[in-house]
């Protein structure tokens, strides 16, 4: 069953002089437990799609359904992870996580225990009392993941969450997030410009065209890549073939603008 459905979604932005068509006719189904990536040329509107799904901005036409109910505003059922951790620098790690519970008014002892358990799984149990400035970039992004998961969303939107990290940290975090999401049976939609990251992590990759964004192609990842952790998938012989294939498609798109 589809957890998230986009049906002929369109988005226009208005300015004083003109109307900009950002998203044109996007239809997409994401099943429960699936990991889908969206890639495309920079500035094509990937983040706009996430913002619409998150209920932060309204779409101009079409339907966005979460479990068959239209999304009108932000909901705790959808978690959003940004490009950087954006932890509040004036709060401790523990308080940063609690803020999710406080805002969603779900700050119970039970939920707090759940978040501390998550923090422990991220290997950060002993950093609860520390300030964000005392943690490395990778640690902070892990805390941000805990904060996102604290509200127990069924769908996770990941907006290039690894882009600000160094390569090794990124690979390790990919594995950790992949494992955590699979274990908790969360559905995820990742936006990235990194082809390898998309191949390593996803079950399915959606390639968008230049603005106005349409779905150009969809790649369904083979079992041997899907079943493996991102790091292991990168070692597979077929990994390079997929990379070449998607790279070519993306290059064709980029040359269209140039």
């Amino acid at each position, binding site marked *: 069953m589809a957890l998230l459905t986009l049906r002929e979604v369109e988005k226009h932005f208005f300015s004083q002089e003109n109307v900009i068509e950002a998203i044109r006719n996007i239809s997409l189904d994401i099943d429960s437990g699936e990991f889908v990536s969206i890639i495309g040329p920079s500035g094509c509107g990937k983040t706009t799609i996430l913002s619409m799904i*998150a209920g*932060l901005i309204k779409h101009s036409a079409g339907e966005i359904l979460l479990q068959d109910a239209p999304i009108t*505003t*932000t*909901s*705790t059922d*959808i*978690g*959003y992870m*940004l490009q*950087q951790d*954006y932890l*509040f*620098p*004036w*709060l401790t790690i523990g308080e940063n996580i609690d*803020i*999710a519970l*406080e*805002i*969603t008014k779900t700050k119970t002892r039970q939920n707090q225990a759940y978040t501390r358990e998550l923090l422990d799984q991220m290997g950060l149990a002993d950093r609860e009392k520390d*300030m964000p*400035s005392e943690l490395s970039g990778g640690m902070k992004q892990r805390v941000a993941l805990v*904060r996102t998961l604290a*509200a127990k969303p069924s769908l996770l939107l990941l907006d290039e969450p690894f882009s600000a990290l160094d390569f090794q940290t990124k690979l390790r975090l990919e594995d950790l997030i992949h494992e955590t999401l699979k274990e908790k049976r969360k559905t995820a939609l990742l936006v990235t410009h990194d082809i390898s990251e998309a191949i390593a992590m996803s079950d399915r990759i959606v390639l968008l065209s230049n603005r106005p964004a349409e779905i150009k192609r969809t790649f369904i990842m083979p079992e041997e890549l899907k079943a493996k952790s991102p790091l292991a998938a990168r070692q597979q012989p077929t990994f390079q073939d997929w990379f070449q294939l998607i790279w070519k498609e993306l290059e064709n798109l980029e040359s269209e603008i140039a």
Partner: protein
Amino acid sequence: MNPKLHEQHEQFRVRKKHEKIYVFMTQVAILAAFISLWEIASRLNWIDPLIFSSPSSVWNLLVSMIADSSLYVHIGVTLVETIFGFLIGTLGGIAIAAFLWWSPFLSRVLDPYIVVLNATPKVALGPMLIVIFGANMTSVVAMAVLISIIVTTLVIYGAFRETDENLIKVVDTFGASKWQRFRHVIIPASYPAMVSALKVNVGLAWVGVIVGEYLVSNEGLGYLIIYGFQVFNFDMVMLSLVLVAILATIMYQAVAILEKFLMRNRH
């Protein structure tokens, strides 16, 4: 640590300590020289003692005003006015800024008026204040408030608006209400701006109170300055000036300590 390094470290520390002592001693020497020169110049009639007074006559006046306890009233009045002006100006400015943040429509409507008010020399409104509040302490406090409140509003409102969009986005994705956004993000993010507004406003409150007392009052240090000037008692003018300088410094330092305390958890 190896003994040689240890010795060098010790030398380094002694040197730093000596530097500190020299600076302090020089500061004291400058003050002593200034006071002595003032006294000598006045006694030898290099400067007119009637106009420039002298440290000894200022001191004598201080002793006699303490003896008949008339000084306490003036100090007390000025301090109370300054503290009230400072608090109302700061808190009022923050409140108005919050109000403007709350209603983007009103903030756009009020923008030109705030710019005009900010550009106007507030002291020029003195006579208006006296007409509105009467010739009493309220007018003086109002002057202090007027001088600090507009600038506080502008600075704090600016800080509210400059809050990192992404931090707001974080709470928005959890479905935060406007109040939650304000309380959990805007206020704590603007906290440093508010604390530094305290420091600026202490200075502004003193300006407002002294000017206010010049215009209307029969008590307070500003009143003593104007009164002393009118009856040609420059001992009184000088004494009041020195007291204003000392009290304003103490208050400023107190706020600086408060600032350190309030910012202890921020880096």
